[in-house]
């Protein structure tokens, strides 16, 4: 159903990357994981992804930077932000900058999956 959509996952917690990669690949997505923002942004310059899932706050690069890089890389990319605590102002800012959706930690893989499906439907519509 998902037709091997390309997903980029950026989060500085190693376990998050491992588990979500396992889970999402099981759902049929092609997942590239990055444990920090800088290499992710570099990759976005060269490749385009269907969906980008990124943590909002990381040590070296802001999730918002990744968001900007993703939009620049391809305007169709659906970007999902992972928030530590859902603060209204961050949500607003990301929304303005073009984020598709949010998911607040902690969450179950299912929940992210549901969001990805929604994004996928959005992509299909074109």
């Amino acid at each position, binding site marked *: 159903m998902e037709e091997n959509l390309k997903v980029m996952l950026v989060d500085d*917690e190693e*376990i*998050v990357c491992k*588990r*979500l990669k*396992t*889970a999402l690949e099981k759902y049929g997505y092609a997942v590239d994981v990055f444990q920090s923002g800088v290499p992710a942004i570099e990759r976005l310059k060269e490749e385009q992804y269907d969906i980008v899932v990124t943590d909002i*706050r990381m*040590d070296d690069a802001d999730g918002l930077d990744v968001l900007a890089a993703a939009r620049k890389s391809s305007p169709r990319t659906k970007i999902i932000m992972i928030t*530590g*605590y859902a603060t209204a102002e961050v949500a607003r800012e990301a929304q303005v900058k073009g984020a598709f959706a949010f998911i607040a*930690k*902690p*969450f*179950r*893989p*299912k929940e992210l999956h549901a969001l990805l499906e929604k994004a996928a439907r959005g992509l299909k519509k074109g």
Partner: protein
Amino acid sequence: MPDKESASAPGYHAPPSIDAFRTSEGSSRQDEEFKDAADRALKERPSFSIRTRLILAFSIFFLLPLVITLWSMHVLANVNEKILFLELADDYKVEIQQARRFEKNYLLYGTNLDDAREHAQAAQRLSMENEEQFRSVVGESSLRTMNEHLSAYLRLLDEADPADRDQWESQLREHGSAMFKLAQDFVIKERNEVEGMLDLTRRVPFVFLVVLFVLMILVVTFLARHIMKSLNRFMGYTQRIGSGDFSPITPTRGYRDEFTDLALNINRMVRELDKHHRILLESHKLRAMGTLVAGVAHELNNPMNNILLTASLLQEDDGSMEESDRQEMLQDLVAQAERTKRIVANLLNFARQSETKVEGLDMRDLIKDITRLLKNQIRIKKVRLRVAFPEELPTVHGDRQLLGQVFTNLILNALDVLPEKGEIVISFDTEHREGFLAVNVADSGPGMPGHIMSRVFDPFFTTKPKGKGTGLGLSVSRGIVRKLGGYLLVESQLGIGTVFTVLLPITTIPSDISSRVGASDGGN
């Protein structure tokens, strides 16, 4: 411990009492009893009010002239009496003079004997008619002497044909001149007395005016000085209160006056201030803790998320998972749970309302714990925190919980002023002051100008916009450090940054001997 002021933090004020950190319910029973006792002592003194003094002063300034006036009037009345008598005495003298003149005529020419007699009799009449007056002025013996001479004189005049003419003449002359002399004497005497009295009425009021003038100056000076002394004392009190010392005003004199009422009112006001201050301190503490707690809660999100993701996958496993993957996941679950445990333990260590306890501290552990607790805040602000631990770190004299509060305050303050990519460096040295360990918290922020730096420890002083920050952090921190026998200093350079230095007394008590309060964390 030398009680010197720090050169780099001028205008040092007495710190708030350390008891404020212990009790959140309010001041202790002892404090209350002491304050009540102070008020009672102020009230229960004999009263000698300023109003009384003023009334006394004015009474004196009124009564003295009154007395002098009455005295003058009395003297003048006496003078009046004396003048009246002088008239009388003068008349008497004149009669005797006349008698003697006619006596002379008679002795020379044989005429005017009757005239002489007439005048002598007139004198005698005057003397008899005014016997009392004469007696009171010249005295009984003089009066008798005068009367004797006069009687003898008259008797001689009455002798028609004296046997011994010469003796008669000489006796006549003798009595005559004696009478005259006496009369003259007391007239002169009386006149001198009157002059003396008039002189007195001239001089005394003048002297009195001078005395009154001096007295007025003295009284006004003393009164003014007395009032100024009290005013100065109260200036001292208000300054003391302004610097955060809420101890009550206690009596310093043996009596009470209007200033006592002022003192009682001020004591009442200070009790209110103290109450509010404690509430503020408590809310400040809570706010600081709130920040810590929020940070820690945020920090907990990560291990929790890791656990949730991992456990979810294990749950959803339909049996197709590799055993090695399974084992890895189970291990991760345990590790993340441990991580959570450590985070919570760290917070509990400092958030617990435990008994403050002074002990030998290893600053390495304390700083490590604090920086770990604040890791999230530091990360969010994208600031770099560097701690330069030396090889050897002497044990210091301090209280774990309270010093934790101090360093939390210093680091949070630094975070507030630093832009992204700013740097905080914590370093140690023992050269700053003999017998002390200096812990420096330096930020690469904008620095402070001199006029701000000198006020930075003042209670309620803050450069943050309204509503953000009560300005209590540094004054409270300084109070804590001071109470522990140390010093909190600041140095700053505009454009370069600020360094807060906490000087803590080095102790000889090894840190592992005194028991630590609170659960110690399991590891690093």
